[in-house]
């Protein structure tokens, strides 16, 4: 657990982005500063990952060339269904975009389509998760206002993560998603690479079979992913629990203040002091409400994203394993059978290339992802700590000003008394 990385240097590179509520503070790699769109050829992608290998992954700063917002949820009712659309506004300086500003209307399904296309094209890249389809717990309706708002923010984060990714941000699918008036025509494409791979749940689970020697680095990664997933789930749960307890505390606080006000009504000398306390409790209640808001709207969503990220990571690891398993199976066939050697040899070579590609992609993206995670979570906890400090500072000020009024009154009294 030795501290790598220069923390002082790191903080110096944090960017404050002008996006609204979400914490989008993290660094990017310089490898694609030219902004040109790269073709999806394996060769060039390998080169690109080599560049990333050389990077520390933390020090570089990338100027943003995409500014995307997701806003304005609107409800649409048709004969068959009801759904929500979101306004997606893109401002970009990218030369491969015809215009510098786009505005389109997209629904959740469209985001799902984009993500699955990205997954197909880049099976071992770590793609930021989308918010869940349904929320099972708590019986939140699909069209409940707070659910929609939470989803909108998550979709916003998703697009921003994609647009800042050195590889994914150059995807044709992303371009289409952001610019096409109608998405439907673009959706009619052949079954994706992944489906050709026959990626069903079962097959993914069984990919461990036939896997002879997984490189040590990926075993380490796998173990980390398992542990990380558990920890994220725990942190998420603890945070939810804290929010719950805070809400219950707030409820009681709201009933507590009025007991002082009611008492003040049957007092004369004491009434001011009692009302003063009631007022303090009331103000502290408001501060508590704000504190709860921060937890619910800033900390919890970030943590939740990383719970989902952990699942993405597990899927990515499985895919990588499957690619290797496919190669090993074919390789065995090559080594055992006598016929069709040439054809098999070609297949095996292609599969070997595929492994190298997949492994490099994962390695490079892993560093990027990990540093992004570190940055996001650090930022989320930092702002929470700051928010809590502010909370206590404001509450303390409230009580202090109450004390001032009391001390002033006491002085007045002392002047009037004979000092008994």
């Amino acid at each position, binding site marked *: *657990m030795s501290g*790598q990385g220069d923390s002082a240097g790191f903080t110096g590179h944090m960017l404050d982005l002008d996006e609204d509520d979400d914490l989008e503070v993290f660094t990017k790699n310089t490898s694609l500063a030219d902004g040109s769109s790269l073709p999806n050829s394996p060769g060039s992608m390998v080169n690109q990952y080599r560049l990333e290998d050389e990077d520390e992954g933390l020090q570089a700063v990338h100027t943003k060339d995409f500014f995307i917002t997701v806003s304005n949820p609107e409800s649409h009712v048709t004969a068959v269904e009801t759904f929500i659309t979101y306004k997606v506004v893109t401002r970009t300086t990218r030369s491969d975009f015809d215009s510098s500003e786009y505005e389109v209307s997209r629904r959740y399904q469209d985001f799902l389509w984009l993500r699955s296309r990205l997954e197909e094209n880049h099976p071992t890249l770590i793609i930021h998760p989308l918010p869940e389809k349904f929320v099972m717990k708590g019986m939140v309706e699909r069209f409940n206002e707070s659910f929609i708002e939470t989803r909108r923010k998550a979709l916003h984060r998703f697009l921003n993560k994609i647009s800042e990714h050195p590889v994914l941000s150059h995807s044709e699918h992303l371009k289409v998603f952001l610019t096409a008036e109608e998405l439907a025509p673009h959706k009619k494409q052949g079954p994706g690479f992944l489906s050709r791979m026959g990626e069903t749940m079962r097959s993914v689970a069984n990919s461990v079979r036939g896997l002879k020697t997984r490189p040590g680095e990926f075993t380490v990664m796998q173990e980390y992913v398992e542990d990380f997933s558990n920890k994220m789930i725990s942190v998420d749960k603890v945070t939810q629990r804290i929010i719950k*307890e805070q809400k219950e505390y707030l409820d009681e606080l709201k009933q507590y203040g009025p007991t002082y006000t009611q008492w003040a009504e049957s007092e004369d000398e004491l009434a001011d002091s009692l009302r003063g306390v009631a007022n303090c409790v009331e103000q502290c209640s408001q501060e508590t409400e704000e504190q709860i808001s921060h937890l619910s709207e800033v900390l919890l969503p970030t943590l939740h994203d990383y719970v989902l990220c952990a699942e993405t990571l597990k899927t990515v690891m499985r895919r990588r394993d499957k690619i290797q398993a496919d190669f090993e199976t074919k390789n065995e066939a090559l080594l055992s059978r006598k016929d069709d050697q040439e054809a098999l040899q070609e297949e095996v070579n292609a599969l070997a290339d595929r492994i190298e590609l997949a492994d490099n992609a994962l390695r490079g993206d892993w560093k990027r992802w990990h540093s992004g995670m570190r940055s996001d979570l650090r930022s989320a906890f930092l702002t929470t700590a700051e928010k809590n400090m502010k909370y206590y500072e404001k509450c303390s000020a409230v009580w202090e000003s109450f004390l001032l009024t009391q001390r002033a009154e006491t002085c007045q009294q002392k002047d009037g008394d004979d000092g008994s």
Partner: protein
Amino acid sequence: MAEDGKEDSLATDDDSEQTAADDSLNTTMVEDGSTLLCRMEICVAEAEKRSGKNAMGMQETFSVYLVETRLTDSGPDGRNPAPDCLWRRYSEFELLRSYLMVTYPFVVAPPLPEKRAEFVWHKLSADNMDPDFVERRRVGLENFLLRVASHPVLSNNKILYHFLTEEHGWREAVYDTGFQAKADSRIRALSATFRVRNPDKGFVEMKHYSDELQSHTSQLLRARARVADRLYGVYKVHGNYGRVFSEWSAIEKEMGDGLQSAGHHMDAYAASIDDILEEEEHYADQIKEYLSYAEALRTVCRKHELTQFELEVASQDLISKKQQREELATGIVRTFSLKGMTNKLFGQEAPVQREARLKVLEELITEGEDTVKEKTAECEEHVEGAWLEMQRFKEQKDKDLREALINYALMQISMCKKGIQVWSNAKECFLKM
């Protein structure tokens, strides 16, 4: 004060030594405005556990409290006297208070700390043996003694002095005063409340106020306990962050140190609530004092209702007897009476019998007039004493509660400052993540 003379006669002293002490006390007591506390330092210094057999022969554990006193006047040799001390149980304090309430029914009796823990929030031990509870009780008992010893009327009481200075034989001395016989029966008091016709307006208002005070303080205490319970939950849950961060730090390289130390601060945060809430209990105790004072105030008002009622009854009785005399003397029946009716129906009685009856009536009327005088005096004395006392109570209440509210604010500020510290430390750790 006039009352002292009356009370002294009630106490019986077997011990001649005691009598001598009392005499000397009498001569020093009558200065105006001087109370026991002016001449003596009093404190309840410690508490201890004892075991013994109770009244039913069963083994029990109880707490005893060390009452320390020291005369502040230096003795004849010019040196300050050594402190004296003795052990008292809670039940003895209770007995003292009951005695004082019966003996001085116009005084608003200072409160004792609660017998059992009330308005408990879930973590607070309701066990009377809990050290925190015992400690708070010690403070409450000391406050009780200080208040009694600084009261212009109560502080001069001999039984009180005995309580403070002589461990043995005190219970017997109290019972010997016969105060229990003087205690008003609940039924009489209650009946008076309902049937009194002209209670003093001021007392009616005071009684109403005492109801309000009781209601408001108990609502406040209940709500505060619930808030404390919830706040406890909030702090303790943060302890889970401590555990999870620690586990998480084990799998991280660069983030590990920051996470680990942040986790420690979360543990500290979770642990800090115990002391914070224990301190708040002292504030709750101050409010509870006035919950008890409300009851004592109501008792004084009830006593007025009782004396007023008894006066009314005696007056009414006198009036009706006088009327009877008039009827007998003049033969004119003004009011309906069974005797009158039977006389009409069956003829009047013989003159000799009438004379006898008149004579009895005259005696009864004389007695009745004495009773009325007595009751009037009792009533007026009570009103006069109680009225002064209630003003004094009001001033003390405003002062005490104001102070309690200020203390509460100070506690809140202290809690906030601790919170700022913890989260500032956590922030430093998060920066290292």
